[in-house]
């Protein structure tokens, strides 16, 4: 074959795939015709024969064309890949050359993306991720609701009736309230350990559809009588303490003073509720479960298929109404729950964190936007410096698309680097958040960086690359090539592209203002809350929750005697400052309340909380005595009934006067048995916060336990220690010992008051800290942005400055000229940001305590802060610019 000559029309011309194949086939046919003709055929029949032998020309040409197209496509891909590789190389070289810009850009992005990834992982792990049980969306938590609409835990007796009489659930169970439980010592494994032991009712494992890894869960028979001494353990416990043996029966556990045979192991990851490791049967024996107002348990159920939460709520509500109507004891009826609430289990666990977490997500997003606008303006600044380079390349023949692609790849590299570092930061941050402990966020232990977070990060990276890479790239490339080449790249650009700077600055300032206002409000709110006096002191106070069963303590005398002995021996024990008893702890949620009558007044007074306590209780909790006296030895079952009220009640019903000596009766719960007996008010004590530190304390009446012993069958003993640092380890041991000395068969659960108090603040603290970090970052970014923009503009306008100064312009005036644009852009942004914050007040309002979402102090402070920061940031480069010698500038031209 001979290569085609230059003149051949085929050389250098790109044929379409169709043409190419057609020509090739045409050649084939012609060659065959030649052969036939040489063999003696005549041309016409030869052509027909050639066509016949060949076959279906159209089909062959189609098949060939398809292959040819495939070849073309793969060639194009290879070219593209080579181009991209080259662009990456060029991009990396460029970034290394301008390392200052690159480092700042990458770090800024790393922070912003890292923050967003962290928050998103938290949101996903806590809010979005379904609970790890089969068909977890069918699981619900049932709680009773008091007259004030507050949710309470469930009374055992009510639960039993619900379970018997209506069936909206395929499985329904109760477990003890983990807030009242503390780790129990368990022996029998390799060594004694303290783990969370949880008594659960019969259908508990059915609710969660738990399939044991080894052995079995409880059988129904094991809930008969007092409950069999069997236990189910968690996978974690089984591996750590039982050596993962399969012969479970060989290693009984010793707890609660008895031996429990292990019958099963739950699958890994199951530790409901609250990190439980051992479950034992709670038969809910009628003798033990207390009254309809003893709210001891939490209830979970698995909804039947087709049953909705609304239907279940209705059924339960109707049943409760029926139950209430059957109660003849008026005082008891008043304390049975007003209604029932059913929520999905996930909402019950995490619902309160939804709003704060979403707020953080929004804040993170704003931070990311600020970071992007920052980098975008820096990229634009660099871009105008590269105008000459780009114009030249464009003139040589690089297509617009290629140039844009190259610039975009640069920004993609920065984004990718920033994203990778950001993910590293996120991992670290998540460790820190987990260290803050489970009390700050529920389900924290299941939060981990999964593929969803990685996907989110990838999207964030792409988003930022487009935002600060593509858009500026388009602007840079659009510049008028001819003009740029003529002025050698040094001329000033047209007015259109100058408008971008103020817009960027305004946007940054707007977002920064929003973040700062949010953080400022949260900060003030948190400070206000942490200053709230809960009304008592929880440091160094141990608690022991216990229940006296009717079988062992059949009457009031026995009950009262137990507490008399317990308190006396505790008070006398070493290391104890004061000991008391109550039927309801502060911050323990809602309790019993109801109305009452004041002697000498015609209408019944309003509601008041009803509490039972001993004198030692107030002393142990450091609740101050404001008037009169506390319960003491003068008061007993034989003497006149006494009551102590809190300040809120005194102020409400005896404003300006002293209530001491006045008489009240028909207290809630008292009505049936003691309805006609008058109680004399002997003292007034300080208010104590109940549900939440942010709720106003309710009026409360305390009665002496010796006069109402049946009320303390189910009670908490509080013991204050003498340790000046508030350590309670020795104290809890003392409590156990003394109470065991009075009656070792009474099961007690020992904990500390500090545990109660800490969890109510943890979440707020976390949110506040994160918001503050974001806001500071935003401020820094905005300041850096302003500084950058003004510096850049000063550099560009060096000539103009020189001329103005040479013409006699005053330094101050020239300085202000440089600053004017930036400062007014920032002020505009501040105005918009403030307007936005005012409009968005509802988003943050419920998270604030004692601070209005339009708190003028915070707004004013933030505005001044940002304007001042912008002023200084623009002043510095402007000031430096006027130091320039005008003659130098002019000469350099």
């Amino acid at each position, binding site marked *: *074959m*001979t*290569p*085609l000559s230059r003149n*051949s029309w*085929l*050389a250098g011309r790109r044929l379409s795939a169709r043409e*190419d*194949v057609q*020509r*090739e*086939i045409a*050649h*084939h046919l*012609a*060659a*065959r015709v*030649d*052969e036939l003709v040489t063999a003696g055929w005549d041309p016409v029949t030869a052509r027909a024969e050639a066509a016949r*032998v*060949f*076959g*279906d020309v159209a*089909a*062959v*040409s189609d*098949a*060939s064309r*398809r*292959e*040819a197209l*495939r*070849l073309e496509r*793969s060639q194009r891909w290879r070219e593209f890949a080579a181009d991209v590789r080259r662009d990456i190389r060029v991009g990396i070289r460029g970034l290394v050359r301008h390392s200052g810009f690159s480092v700042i850009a990458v770090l800024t992005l790393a922070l912003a993306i890292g923050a967003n990834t962290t928050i998103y992982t938290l949101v996903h792990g806590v809010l979005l991720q379904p609970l790890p049980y089969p068909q977890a969306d069918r699981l619900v938590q049932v709680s009773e609701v008091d007259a004030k609409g507050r949710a309470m835990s469930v009374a055992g007796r009510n639960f039993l009736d619900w379970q018997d009489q209506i069936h909206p659930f395929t499985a329904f169970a109760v477990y003890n309230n983990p807030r009242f439980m503390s780790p129990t010592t368990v022996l029998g494994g390799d060594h004694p350990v303290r783990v969370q032991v949880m008594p659960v009712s019969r259908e508990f494992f059915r609710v969660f559809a738990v399939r044991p890894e080894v052995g079995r869960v409880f059988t129904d028979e094991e809930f008969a009588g007092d409950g069999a001494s069997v236990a189910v353990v968690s996978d974690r416990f089984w591996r750590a303490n039982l050596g993962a043996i399969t012969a479970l029966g060989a290693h009984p556990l010793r707890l609660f003073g008895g031996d429990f045979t292990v019958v099963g192991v739950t699958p890994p990851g199951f530790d409901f509720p609250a990190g439980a490791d051992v479950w034992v049967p709670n038969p809910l024996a009628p003798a033990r479960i207390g009254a309809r107002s003893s709210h001891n348990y939490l209830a979970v159920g698995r909804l039947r298929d087709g049953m909705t939460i609304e239907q279940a709520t209705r059924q339960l509500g109707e049943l409760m109404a029926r139950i209430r109507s059957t109660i003849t004891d008026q005082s008891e009826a008043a304390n049975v729950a007003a209604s029932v609430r059913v929520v999905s289990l996930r909402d019950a666990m995490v619902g309160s964190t939804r709003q704060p977490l979403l707020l953080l997500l929004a804040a993170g997003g704003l931070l990311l936007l600020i970071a992007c606008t920052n980098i975008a303006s820096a990229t634009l600044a660099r871009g105008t410096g590269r105008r000459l380079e780009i114009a030249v390349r464009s003139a040589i023949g690089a297509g617009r698309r290629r140039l844009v692609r190259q610039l975009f790849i640069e920004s993609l590299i920065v984004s990718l680097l920033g994203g990778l570092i950001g993910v590293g930061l996120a991992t670290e941050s998540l460790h820190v958040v987990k260290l803050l402990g489970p009390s700050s966020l529920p389900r924290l232990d299941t939060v981990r960086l999964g593929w969803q977070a990685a996907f989110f990060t990838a999207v964030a990276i792409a988003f930022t690359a487009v935002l600060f890479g593509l858009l500026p790239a388009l602007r840079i490339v659009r510049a008028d090539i001819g003009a740029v080449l003529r002025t050698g790249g040094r001329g000033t650009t047209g007015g259109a592209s100058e408008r971008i700077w103020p817009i960027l600055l305004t946007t940054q300032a707007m977002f920064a203002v929003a973040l700062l206002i949010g953080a400022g409000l949260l900060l003030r709110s948190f400070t206000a809350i942490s200053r709230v006096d809960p009304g008592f002191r929880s440091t160094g106070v141990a608690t022991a929750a216990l229940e006296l069963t009717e079988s062992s303590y059949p009457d009031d005398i026995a009950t009262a005697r137990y507490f008399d002995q317990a308190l006396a021996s505790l008070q006398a024990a070493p290391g104890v400052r004061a000991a008391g008893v109550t039927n309801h702890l502060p911050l323990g949620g809602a309790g019993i309340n109801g109305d009452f009558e004041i002697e000498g007044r015609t209408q019944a007074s309003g509601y008041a909380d009803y509490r039972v306590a001993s004198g030692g209780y107030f002393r142990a909790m450091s609740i101050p005595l404001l008037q009169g006296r506390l319960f003491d030895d003068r008061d007993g079952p034989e003497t006149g009934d006494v009551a102590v009220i809190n300040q809120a009640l005194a102020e409400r019903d005896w404003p300006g006067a002293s209530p001491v000596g006045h008489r009240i009766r028909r207290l809630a719960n008292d009505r049936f048995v003691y309805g006609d007996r008058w109680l004399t008010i002997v003292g007034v004590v300080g208010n104590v916060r109940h549900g939440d530190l942010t709720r106003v304390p309710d009026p409360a009446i305390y009665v002496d336990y010796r006069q109402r012993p049946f009320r303390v069958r189910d009670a908490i003993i509080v013991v204050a220690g003498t340790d000046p640092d508030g350590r309670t380890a020795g104290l809890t041991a003392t409590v156990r010992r003394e109470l065991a000395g009075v009656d070792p068969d009474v099961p007690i659960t020992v904990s500390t008051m500090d545990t109660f108090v800490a969890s109510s603040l943890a979440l707020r603290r976390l949110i506040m800290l994160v918001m503050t970090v974001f806001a500071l970052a935003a401020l820094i970014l905005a300041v850096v942005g302003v500084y950058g923009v003004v510096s850049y503009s000063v550099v560009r306008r060096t000539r103009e400055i020189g001329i103005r100064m040479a013409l006699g312009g005053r330094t101050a005036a020239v300085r202000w000229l440089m600053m004017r644009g930036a400062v007014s852009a920032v002020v505009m942004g501040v105005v918009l940001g403030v307007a936005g914050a005012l409009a968005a007040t509802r988003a943050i309002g419920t998270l604030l305590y004692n601070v209005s979402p339009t708190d003028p102090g915070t707004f004013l402070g933030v505005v001044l802060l940002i304007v001042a920061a912008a002023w200084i940031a623009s002043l510095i480069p402007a000031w430096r610019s006027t130091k320039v010698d005008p003659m130098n500038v002019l000469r350099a031209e």
Partner: protein
Amino acid sequence: MNPTSNELLKGTLDLLILKTVNWGPMHGYAISRWIREQTGDLLAVEEGALYPALRRLETRGWLASEWARSETGREARFYTITPVGRRRLRDEATAWQRYVLAMTRVLEGPRPSAAR
């Protein structure tokens, strides 16, 4: 024309083409003629299979092609084998010979011993 038409598998067609082109640059018609002549008309490559196969081999990178003038003066698309293609040819040829050996052994082998 071929007296017996055998169905050619795609893989064996590739092998035939590669070997043929290995002798030197050829255009499609020449390849088809060469195979016909070499096998004494036992195998004839149907044109319908040849041209798509040539494109396929080119996509795989085993053949390269360019337009040039043939000995008759016409413009034709000539195919040459690439180094990668040569390696492929070697591998495929070895595999083919092993296959043939195995088939021969079975077809001409002794009667299997009676089952125990």
